[in-house]
């Protein structure tokens, strides 16, 4: 691929070769992929719409049922009313933030070592990092529980053991994500910085780290969402503690408070706003 780039030119219209087709048919074939894509997107949003609608539901019984009985705002003003709901949210945030920080830190270091440095045993290191990703969650959760019990951790099952487990399954995803970013980076930029008398630390802080940042941020976001939403591994390692997914699962067995739908809607809205705000900030910065 070391040839010179092809000259820029207008993109070929795929419909041009067949001028005899009717306009509608041509428009459809040009936009078919887009239409299918938007349909799939709509499908992704079906349950979100359901959750959103049910968050305004005034259930007739004690449990928020499937049917929409009456409109109310009261679920939105009484999020913490169901017993234990807000405690579970607090625990989930604590666990996810801790696990995300630890996994991102450990994983980023590993990614740098793997992409930037050569040493013996790299292939085995890559394999060891890949294996947790190829391990189904039940297996990971059950083996961790067995270990915690056997080393006498069963009395402290809770925050610490959940964090240990979450860091474990986030770690490989962080390494892979950051590695992909580092592998696509042009190392000549760093050489140029060194040529301009920047020392190793300055080069790292002013050139390497800013270039790697989008990968690191993506890895942290991925870790957070994996950790916050995890049920299977947490179910094994939580002892008596209840994270938000465990709370939802527990509620399904008894009465199901409508406030859970409020939390679900809020999680969607907050993440949506966050990502959009990040995008606007990125565009602003790109313009200056």
């Amino acid at each position, binding site marked *: 691929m070391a040839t010179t780039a092809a000259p820029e030119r207008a993109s070929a219209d795929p419909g041009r070769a067949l001028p005899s087709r009717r306009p509608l048919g041509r428009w459809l074939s040009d936009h078919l992929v887009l239409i299918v*894509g938007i349909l799939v997107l709509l499908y992704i*949003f079906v349950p979100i719409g359901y959750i959103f609608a049910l968050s305004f539901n005034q259930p007739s019984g004690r449990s928020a049922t499937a049917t929409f009985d009456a409109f109310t705002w009261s679920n939105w003003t009484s999020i913490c009313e169901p017993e234990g709901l807000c405690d579970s949210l607090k625990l989930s945030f604590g666990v996810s933030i801790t696990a995300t920080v630890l996994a991102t830190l450990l994983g980023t270091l*590993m990614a740098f070592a793997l992409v930037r*440095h050569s040493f013996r045993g790299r292939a085995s290191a890559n394999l060891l*990092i890949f294996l947790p990703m190829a391990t189904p969650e039940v297996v990971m959760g059950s083996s961790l529980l067995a270990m915690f019990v056997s080393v006498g951790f069963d009395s402290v099952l809770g925050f610490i053991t959940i964090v240990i487990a979450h860091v*474990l399954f986030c770690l490989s995803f962080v390494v892979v994500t950051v590695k992909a970013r580092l592998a696509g980076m042009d190392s000549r930029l760093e050489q140029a910085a060194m040529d301009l008398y920047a020392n190793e630390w300055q080069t790292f802080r002013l050139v390497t780290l800013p270039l790697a940042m989008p990968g690191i941020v993506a890895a942290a976001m991925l870790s957070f969402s994996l950790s916050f939403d995890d049920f299977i591994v947490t179910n094994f390692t939580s002892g008596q503690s209840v994270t938000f997914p465990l709370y939802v699962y527990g509620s399904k067995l008894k009465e199901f408070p409508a406030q859970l739908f409020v939390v679900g809607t809020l999680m969607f809205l907050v993440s949506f706003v966050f990502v959009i705000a990040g995008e606007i900030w990125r565009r602003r910065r790109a313009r200056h």
Partner: protein
Amino acid sequence: MTSGPSQAPATGAPVVDGETAKRRGWGWLLLVPGMLYLAVFFVFPTIQLFFTSLYDPSGSFERGYAMTWQFGNYLDAVRDTWNLFVRSFAYAGIATVVCLVLGYPLAYAIAFKSGRWKNFMLVLVIAPFFTSFLLRTLAWRTILSDQGPVTSFLQTIGMLPDDGRLLATPVAVIAGLIYNFMPFMTLPLYASLDKVDYRLVEAAGDLYSSPFTGFRKVTFPLSLPGVVSGTLLTFIPACGDYINAELLGTPKQYMVGNRIQSAFLTEHNYPLAASLSLILMLVVVLMVFVYVRRAGTEDLL
């Protein structure tokens, strides 16, 4: 670590050899904390799980277990639950294929057809999955229920008999798997497709290939790394999942994950649970290796 042609920069700049850019020295020390973590919390528990799987199954949680090197545990596990394994791999396989069929057009549309709405569409793909997956699966349970809109619609147009149902069938469980693992398929596909130099596709058109041939010979091969990592990231968690089978199915649709979970947490039959876990892990890892080999994307590992 071979690097495929798709990884070469398409800017026309001379390729910097990846190996020469790497430094020797003490950089590997950066690996140590993470590797120690994996050793203590992944390798060690897995070895321990192996020993657990060889305990005398007549022991119990209260009385403790005796180590009798009971390799027969594996035979018992396979004999009693082989149908669960077959079902798990079948459900996960079907879900993976459907995810690919649905996720590919979506990723393609975002990468090539969305114009300045690209990032917005990407956000729309990711954001729903920040809502708890248990809540979403419970929402599907309502949507697919006997009085729900989908069942009534299918009954009205005659695709489902009047007493037919969706909930508590394999269809519902597989649909749940498809839905829950969709982003794991779409995002790697998008990452791969977004890197494809569209001028190569245009060049194929200029050389009189039909759009379909151009896709088959140019776009799809270039997106192969995304296809492989997407299918793996969908298939692996789908194999071990038990939430969809539990919430959308009945014990008749239970997968091997349900059995492992109940053996561990309800029956406290640790030898059985451990041997099932290890068989599942081994089969999944083997499948992954064969698949990655065949697809020629070893550098993915």
